[in-house]
């Protein structure tokens, strides 16, 4: 039992952290919550938790899109355009089709955008960054045209959507969790327990090996980008309910945070490593950092600088902890 045989405590700690990448993230989240409480006594309450969760839910869904696509070595830069578009479509159609009809049309349009992206990435082997970037231009332009068409009608976020996006049950439980919890459970279980989930990891880890073992990458990728776009559409509807705004650029500012939340959550942008659990914690961390920085009363400029610096620091620390050597 000498030290030469047994690895030291520090080495063992690092190793066990590497096996459980969620632990350091949860510790960071806990530290941030404690810090929020220390900065302003009594600020952490049931209310605070509810408000934080409500803000984190749509971001976590968008980050879910990034997580799934990054697992295959891709990225989805069209999530913000698709999300804004579907939030706007719901608001503009609610007068004619009612809320459910509007949601169906919005998610259908989102799925169509995802289908095109998926075909580009899966069949034509276009780099996902470029494919989804081009798709976001297309969606944004079409949404703008649609906006001009609809400018006469009195579009507004329907009350049902507002209720889902912003209401708190008993003042503490955000209604949006009703959408998020089943979705998150489906993704978590799907990634771990279903063949499709494992194939996403396989393609991202080693596309050639995946192909040789019989995975049809193009089918998997098309389905993946459709799923991602529909998730983005749902997130967009939640955003419009949360903010009570229907605009074709509503979600733009959430694109970069969605990538950041995924990366902080430990999903490798190179593919094959990571998961949705870390992403949820990542989205919570970003939301708490955001509210912490604004409760400190710093101006927007300082907040942005600190936000970026913290993301670099966390990503760097994370890479250190989880890297092999």
């Amino acid at each position, binding site marked *: 039992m000498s030290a030469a045989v047994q690895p030291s405590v520090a080495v063992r700690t690092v190793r066990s952290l590497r096996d459980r990448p969620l632990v350091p993230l949860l510790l960071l989240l806990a530290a941030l919550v404690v810090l929020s409480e220390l900065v302003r006594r009594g600020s952490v309450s049931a209310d605070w938790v509810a408000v934080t969760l409500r803000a984190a839910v749509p971001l976590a869904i968008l980050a879910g899109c990034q997580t799934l696509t990054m697992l295959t070595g891709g990225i989805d830069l069209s999530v913000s355009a698709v999300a804004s578009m579907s939030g706007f479509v719901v608001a503009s159609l609610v007068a004619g089709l009612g809320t459910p009809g509007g949601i169906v049309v919005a998610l259908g349009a989102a799925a169509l955008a995802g289908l095109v992206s998926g075909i580009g990435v899966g069949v034509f082997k276009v780099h996902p960054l470029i494919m989804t970037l081009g798709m976001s231009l297309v969606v944004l332009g079409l949404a703008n045209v649609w906006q001009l068409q609809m400018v006469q009608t009195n579009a507004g976020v329907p009350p049902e959507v507002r209720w889902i996006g912003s209401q708190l049950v008993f003042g503490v439980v955000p209604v949006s969790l009703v959408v998020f919890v089943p979705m998150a459970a489906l993704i978590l279980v799907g990634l771990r327990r279903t063949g499709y989930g494992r194939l996403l990891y396989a393609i991202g880890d080693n596309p050639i090996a995946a192909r040789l073992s019989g995975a049809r990458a193009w089918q998997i990728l098309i389905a993946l980008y459709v799923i991602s776009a529909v998730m983005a559409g749902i997130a967009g509807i939640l955003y419009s309910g949360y903010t009570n705004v229907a605009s074709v650029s509503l979600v733009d500012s959430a694109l970069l945070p969605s990538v950041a939340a995924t990366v902080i959550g430990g999903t490798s942008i190179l593919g094959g490593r990571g998961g949705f659990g870390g992403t949820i914690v990542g989205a919570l961390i970003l939301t708490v950092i955001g509210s912490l920085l604004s409760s400190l009363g710093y101006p*927007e400029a300082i907040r942005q600088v600190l936000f970026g610096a913290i993301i670099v620091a966390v990503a*760097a620390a994370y890479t250190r902890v989880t890297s092999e050597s």
Partner: protein
Amino acid sequence: MSATTAPPVSRSVGLSGVLLAGLRRNAWTIGLLFFLGLLLVFTKFIQPRYGVAGVQGLAISVMPLALAAVAQAIVVIAGGIDLSIGSLMALTNVIAAALMKGQSEEFGVVVVVGVVLIGILLGAINGTLVVLTRVPDIVVTLAMSFVWAGCALLVLATPGGGSAAWLMSIVTGSLGNEWIPKAAVVVIVVVAAIWIPFRRTRSGLSIYAVGSNGLAAFRSGISVGRTKILAYGLMGLFAALAGLAVTASTGIGTPVPGPYTLLSVAAIVLGGVSLAGGRGGIFGPIVAVVVLQLIRTDMTFMDINTNLSTVVQGLILIGVVMVGSLLQLRRAHT
């Protein structure tokens, strides 16, 4: 234009062979130029009054994005990507505008030189972080885009500041012939003066080597980290020039980043730079930026909703890349 693609192969071949090889290496850029020519003819056809003023306006409006695309191209050739270019442009733009407001013309020269040096420094900071943290480029530069945008807001909270008169005058008007806009000359001269000599140096070659195969470059004795930082420094230089171009063409500083980051990525891909690194040049992206802008102009002439021109830009981006990868797939099969 021989400076636009992969390093020249030193083999003794005849003049025609050299020409042919040059043509083949620059096929993409030459094709783009040809397309640009067609587009100009088409523009003249649908709008007979398109002339000197149109060309001038085109040159001035493409200037910032053209320089941003050059900046992006250098990093991508070196195997990275920089998503903070738009923020870097905003930051250098407001620094220049804030310092030059109400100052003498001579002081403006000092400011321009200073801002370029700051750009190199900021770019090198991005590169150093990428190298030191070993976090993927896209993540580091994404996070740094918040940092630089925040700094821009610290310098100027609202659009304001000013520009030295000489800076504005070197990009407006024409040089000699009225058909040669000064803005185009400035971009070409500046880019050529920096890039062509640099590409012929050892470091210029290293950038291509590191981008095309980092491990091979490392094993042949290139310091990969230093080369990457150098590429990011150059990126910062051109991003600063792009920021100065915004100052020069608008006369003020705007702290909110424009849509330049993602458009620069689109432009380099259309310009024949491979996102995988190591392949492509600087002039292709510039031509691609001009083509994109001219298509936008044409759509206004044809009375097509400007929002649809965003759609068309997206479709062109997707279409061109799809065709490119289809050609590659077919070549791989045969």
